[in-house]
């Protein structure tokens, strides 16, 4: 057995070396290099305390450090104000992005990330006529003195809303569209080339509407590649995708960066992807200021700063920060699982750190009675051998759900997981009564859905759609929230509605149309609408897709608060952290069937199941696997607690033999 400090010291040698190569790639700022040199003796040197000066520092080091590093994008003192807006969305932004970089732009909702990217492809100032000051140079071209079309040959932009940027009916048409518009005679070869680069040639003749979300995103990326741009900007690639598809997109981006030397810029909330794939990070403050621009590991270990701006650092970084475990070479917290595992893993020849459940580190109490011993709890939803599906274009009936048997009990908090198209939405729709089973039956709170209208079922069930905009049917949010109760002519609803609006922090937004809110606000509004229906069973389709960390926590806290009214919650989700630290029961779906119905750790212990359902466990669970824990911790808190117990154990025990 060994102590933390020894583990740290052991890993130092390995890391000093790997870090040196990192250094070359990332061209770290001088200041940090100094800090690194002095870390061996000075534990206090804190690299994390870097400030705004960093931006200048990196620009500075860029020019005199490495002559071969050309800036492909230069933003000089740019301020921008949308027409009609009162405050600037961007405020005096200066940036420099080098050729071949892979940069993540992060910042909380409303910090001007998308606006910044629209400055880079020329939509601002050419298309949006707001107040624009400063200068943007792309490949040496001043964006204000050229056309968007001209810039498109250098910068490609993949919108977050990938559905609406695909304008042609088939994949191949879509890829030909831009090269054709620019009059390239070889537009077909260009389209073919783009398909080949992303290895999606088999999609070529498909209709756009038949594609899954992940495929659509891939096509949008391919369409951008068809013009062979040097810079590719991707706006929130993982927001709408299942984890496996998100990873695939990032792998393709990394490949484009490596093999084709494209400069990649992503706007991203999910820091674990940034840690694994990006090289540098630009942090935007509220009000569109650049706070700093740093290499990825320095950026993501600035935990307090990120959390202050509602950005969730990678789970491993959070855990390591809680344990105060820094990389001895850099004084930074590790940001990838790999790195963290190396720091935690003992040297060869020593014993593995193995938590002993029986003795002193019992896992968090889990609501085991919820999944196994359900006999004494009330069954709210009984699905008996139900099959349902769609009719496809060739008139065949395609079952998206087959012979589903499922009972949902009072007190269940179910996470419904699986790849896109596994049948999650169809199952929710069956329970909500807006889809009837072809065969079998669905019984919700005593009503057979086949003989009950959705209106009648809505007294017991509320269903939150995946797309919030489809739920805004009244003139403003407040009216939307009242809709259900007013339709039932209930009296004295004011206090209740006010309470709901307050809890969801919507009082300032209540008179606005839901469509005009930001993604996170829209999500909160739809949750408020759902809860104002006082449902017994609540169904949510992808509720955390565009929520930042704070809203996400608020949401799960509200669920807990409401347990008296809402007796069961079913959430279809790709959010594995939600699965790990909120759900009491997990249902894994694949191909219209239920593969597993059990507790979170059961799911995370079955790799083949995860692969089938396109799931990737949360980082903290993966780290547990890497450390060969038999029962991995499911949340950062659990992990930290267990590690602390371990260190106590080991330091109290006999000293290790070396």
């Amino acid at each position, binding site marked *: 057995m060994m102590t933390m400090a020894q583990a740290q010291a052991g890993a130092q040698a390995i890391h000093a070396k790997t870090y040196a190569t990192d250094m070359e790639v990332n061209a770290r700022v001088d200041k940090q290099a100094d800090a690194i040199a002095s870390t061996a003796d000075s534990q206090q040197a804190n690299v994390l305390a870097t400030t705004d000066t960093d931006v200048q520092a990196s620009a500075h080091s860029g020019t005199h450090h490495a002559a071969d590093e050309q800036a492909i994008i230069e933003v000089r003192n740019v301020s921008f104000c949308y027409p009609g807006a009162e405050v600037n969305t961007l405020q005096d932004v200066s940036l420099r992005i080098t050729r071949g970089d892979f940069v993540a732009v992060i910042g909380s909702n409303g910090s001007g990330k998308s606006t910044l990217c629209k400055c880079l492809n020329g939509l601002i100032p050419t298309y949006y006529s707001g107040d624009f000051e400063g200068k943007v140079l792309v490949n040496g071209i001043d964006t204000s003195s050229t056309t968007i*079309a001209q810039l498109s040959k250098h910068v490609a932009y993949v919108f977050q809303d990938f559905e609406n940027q695909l304008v042609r009916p088939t994949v191949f048409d879509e890829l030909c569209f831009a090269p054709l518009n620019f009059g390239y005679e070889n537009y077909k070869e260009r389209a073919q080339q783009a398909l080949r680069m992303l290895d999606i040639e088999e999609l070529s003749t498909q209709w756009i509407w038949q594609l899954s979300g992940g495929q659509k995103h891939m096509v949008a990326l391919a369409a951008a590649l068809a013009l062979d741009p040097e810079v590719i900007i991707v706006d929130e690639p993982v927001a709408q995708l299942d984890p496996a598809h998100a990873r695939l997109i990032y792998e393709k981006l990394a490949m484009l960066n490596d093999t084709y030397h494209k400069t990649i810029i992503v706007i991203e909330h999910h820091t674990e992807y940034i840690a694994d794939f990006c090289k540098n990070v630009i942090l935007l403050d509220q009000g569109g200021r650049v706070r700093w621009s740093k290499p990825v590991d320095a950026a993501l270990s600035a935990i307090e700063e990120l959390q202050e701006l509602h950005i969730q650092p990678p789970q491993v970084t959070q855990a390591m920060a809680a344990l105060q475990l820094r990389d001895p070479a850099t004084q930074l917290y590790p940001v990838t699982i790999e790195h963290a595992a190396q720091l935690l893993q003992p040297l060869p020849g020593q014993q593995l750190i193995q938590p002993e459940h029986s003795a002193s580190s019992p896992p968090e109490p889990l609501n085991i009675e919820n999944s196994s011993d359900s006999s004494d709890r009330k069954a709210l939803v009984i699905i008996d051998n139900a099959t349902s599906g769609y009719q496809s274009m060739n008139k*065949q009936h395609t079952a998206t759900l*087959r012979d589903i048997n499922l009972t949902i009990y009072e007190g269940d908090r179910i996470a419904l997981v699986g790849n896109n198209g596994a049948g999650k939405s169809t199952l929710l729709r069956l329970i909500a009564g807006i889809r009837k089973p072809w065969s079998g039956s669905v019984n919700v709170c005593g009503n057979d859905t086949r003989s009950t209208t959705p209106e009648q079922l809505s007294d017991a069930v509320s269903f939150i*759609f995946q797309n919030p905009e489809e739920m805004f049917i009244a003139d403003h949010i407040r009216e939307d929230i009242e809709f259900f109760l007013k339709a039932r002519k209930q009296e004295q609803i004011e206090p209740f509605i006010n309470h709901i609006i307050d809890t969801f922090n919507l009082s300032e937004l209540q008179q606005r149309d839901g469509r005009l809110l930001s993604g996170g606000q829209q999500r909160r509004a739809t949750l408020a609408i759902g809860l104002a229906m006082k449902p017994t069973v609540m169904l949510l389709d992808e509720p955390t897709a565009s929520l930042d960390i704070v809203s996400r926590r608020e949401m799960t806290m509200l669920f807990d608060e409401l347990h008296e009214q809402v007796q069961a919650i079913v959430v279809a989700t790709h959010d594995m952290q939600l699965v790990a630290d909120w759900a009491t029961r997990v249902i894994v779906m694949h191909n219209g069937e239920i593969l597993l119905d059990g507790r979170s750790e059961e799911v995370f212990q079955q790799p083949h199941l995860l692969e089938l359902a396109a799931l990737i466990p949360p980082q903290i669970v993966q780290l547990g696997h890497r450390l060969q824990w038999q029962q991995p911790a499911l949340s950062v808190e659990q992990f930290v607690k267990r590690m602390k117990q371990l260190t106590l154990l080991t330091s109290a025990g006999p000293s290790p033999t070396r």
Partner: protein
Amino acid sequence: MEITNPVHKPGFWEKISVERIKVELLRTAYGQSMTFLSRFDPRILMAWYAFFAITPWFIHNKVILLGFLIAIAILTYTSKPSLLVLLVLAIGLISDAAYMLVVSLMFGGGLAAAWALSTLTLKLLVITLASIAVFTSMDPERLSDGLLSLGMPAQFSFGVAYGFRMLPILIEEYNNILYSYRLRGKSPQKKSLRMLIYSFKLSVIAFYPLILNTAKRTRTTVEALEIKGFTYAMHDPKVKKLKLSYLKITLKDLAFLAVSALYIAVVFYLGSMLEL
């Protein structure tokens, strides 16, 4: 992987659901890439269609109209139109014929007048069947390119193709909005007149959120079009030429026109000989 379920027989109400209408529309638009008519150049088809859409108005000879009808009915059959479209057509024609019969009886015209008025029904039948035959055989892409090559503005011809591209999304969204109303609303007691009024009211008001959402989603589309060089292309005649270079009128097309012309000539000849 798709699992087919041959056992399931949809009920009548399932058949006319919004989702079903979507499937039928898509089938009409894109489903038939290999019908007889789809082999010809879209411009030839449009010219052919123009003839059958316009000339019936000026023909009063039932023999000629019947001659047209036979040929077009056969072509319609080969283009495998969706039942839904035919159903809409049948409802239109039956109500039209019934109304004429009622009117002629009310005004004392008797069956003779109705027989005379049936010429109009025949004309309508020829024109609608011609529309169905041509438009189910020609996918929106070819239609849009055909229009472009005939000198329509690029915005218009793009709009045709884009409209069809958005159709499935819009229908799905409409369906969801409809359910948003239903899942929060309260319906009257089942199977009453009020229920009918309620359903009708919902199906109309659900369009408002749809229109607002569409207005919003268009923003991305317009920006995307700008980036993809759509406006740039409109000022470049070279692009149009490049885009339409695949449209070629071949011997096959000419043969089709020739056969059509011959058939029309024969029908006109027969029409001048016979009288109905």
